[in-house]
């Protein structure tokens, strides 16, 4: 047990060091760009795992929270002139606030209604962004967003070296925080509620409060990721709210395996490179999303624990998997209490 744990610690240390060394060997700006994008997706996918995998909340508003982070950061930095670093934090807080609003109705709802409300919320955030075009740039997008800075350092003339390390730092910090969360008593309580709602309440777990916390925490990390994303790209477009983005990130969570945090991070790395590689094939922009879609179905069909579970000593927890062991939740099925 301890040996295993140590082995895992070493492996993680090794991976972090590798991550730190990558830019020394990878000098190509485009490849560095791909790493940066992959790190952002890694944060989004891993934090989605907190609600979808650990808490078992059918949360499909996660990409909307990412978008809220993007626009909140972009707008406060550009329109209000807030310091970009500060704006990134505001992005995280705004996403958390949005999550709290969504949580208000959904912590009391069951199954399909949670899915419906979270989807509807995503679409309506999109509508607001598009309709308030005088502020958000509407379908044209938000442009000329200021970028992050450090005294005496120029992020724009270093072949993306600075951005790489900021993104990597954020990813490591996010992963560490998420792992701490899921291993804490709080993490235990949301897994408990996922396994058995009624039993959890009967053992004193306040269901609404824990779900609210899970949503708010998970949205904070994705909002920060969004904040960094917009400061890095310096533009934001409402396309981020598309179903395509949601399914790309969802495929990362599924391929990596839910309830592991690490799985989605690695899947994000692999899938970003794959999907960008495909996007570079001429006239194949649509094809890459078609492949993503096929991947999702194939994974759900044949590897419901995620592809990561195929690896020996997979990084996930050695516990049965949400997608395999959740109770049936079909309305109208004979699943009433007692």
């Amino acid at each position, binding site marked *: 047990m301890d040996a295993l744990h140590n082995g895992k610690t070493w492996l993680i240390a090794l991976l972090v060091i590798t991550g730190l060394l990558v830019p020394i060997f990878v000098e190509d700006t485009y490849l560095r760009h791909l790493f940066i994008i992959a790190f952002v997706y890694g944060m989004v996918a891993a934090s989605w795992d907190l609600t979808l995998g650990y808490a078992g909340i059918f949360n499909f508003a996660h990409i909307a929270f990412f978008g809220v982070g993007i626009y909140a950061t972009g707008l406060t930095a550009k329109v209000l002139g807030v310091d970009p670093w500060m704006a990134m934090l505001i992005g995280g807080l705004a996403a958390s606030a949005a999550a709290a609003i969504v949580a208000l109705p959904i912590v009391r709802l069951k199954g399909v209604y949670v899915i419906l409300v979270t989807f509807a919320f995503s679409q309506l955030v999109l509508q607001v962004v598009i309709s308030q075009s005088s502020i958000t740039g509407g379908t044209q997008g938000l442009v000329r967003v200021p970028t992050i800075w450090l005294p005496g350092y120029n992020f724009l003339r270093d072949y993306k070296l600075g951005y790489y390390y900021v993104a990597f730092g954020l990813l490591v910090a996010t992963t560490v925080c998420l792992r701490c969360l899921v291993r804490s008593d709080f993490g235990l309580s949301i897994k408990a509620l996922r396994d058995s709602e009624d*039993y959890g309440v009967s053992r004193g777990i306040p269901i609404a409060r824990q779900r609210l916390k899970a949503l708010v925490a998970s949205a904070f990390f994705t909002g920060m990721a969004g904040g960094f994303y917009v400061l890095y790209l310096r533009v934001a477009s409402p396309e981020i709210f598309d179903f395509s983005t949601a399914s790309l990130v969802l495929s990362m969570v599924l391929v990596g395996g839910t309830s592991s945090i690490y799985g989605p991070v690695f899947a994000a790395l692999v899938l970003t490179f794959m999907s960008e590689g495909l996007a570079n094939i001429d006239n194949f922009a649509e094809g890459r999303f078609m492949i993503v879609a096929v991947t999702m179905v194939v994974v759900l069909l044949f590897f419901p624990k995620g592809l990561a579970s195929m690896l020996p000593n997979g990084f996930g927890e050695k*516990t049965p998997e949400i997608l395999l062991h959740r109770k049936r939740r079909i309305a109208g099925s004979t699943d009433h209490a*007692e």
Partner: protein
Amino acid sequence: MLETNDNQPLLEVRQVSRRFGALVAVDRVSFSIQKGEIFGIAGPNGSGKSTLFNIITGIPFPPSAGEVFLAGQPIHKLRPHQISRAGVLRTFQKDAEFATLSALENVYASAVYCGQMGSNEARVAAQQALDDVSLAAERRTKAASDLSVFERKQLMIASAIAARPKVLLLDEPAAGLTRPETSDLADLIYTVHGRGITIVLIEHVLPLLLKVSEHLMVLNHGAVIASGKPEEVVRNPVVVAAYLGKREAGL
């Protein structure tokens, strides 16, 4: 705060009802339980026993009407997890443990959230509770879904007592057990009782129910049809008729 009465019941249920559309699953039921009692509840299938537990604990729904008091304090308006924290814990008729968590984590979670202990205290309390129900040490790190039927019953009870409840509501704990296991369960109930925990027991296995109960209440169609000393209640013609009637209807 005037009524500080030594004879005050620990749990008092007054005229509680629960409707599902036209069906009255629990119909103006009242009873009270003294501290330290083992209180048995019997009744044919569908007579409203589990529903009674549901509305006392608020899980998953409160009563449509009526009041519940714990040591004189009203609890029927509290939120469900607050009722649990106030000291009314229950088990469920069907398996309901946290399937993916280990046995130890199951009990620990209850000590932390229901017993509201710090993590060190909770860890000790969890091990102690598992000792009390004598779940083998090497089984405690297993996922709850990997435990045997009897081990899951032990787990369910351990997770309740780790939170130091005042009252424990057991819903058909003997269901699915073999005869020797049922007798182990009786010992388990006495152990819990020995910890000063008042017990309410719903049971279809009559020998067990009659063995441990000090008081027996029988429900039929949601209403109380008899209540008193177990030996007397089972001889009550109304009770006999209710069971027989059910059996004939079942044919």
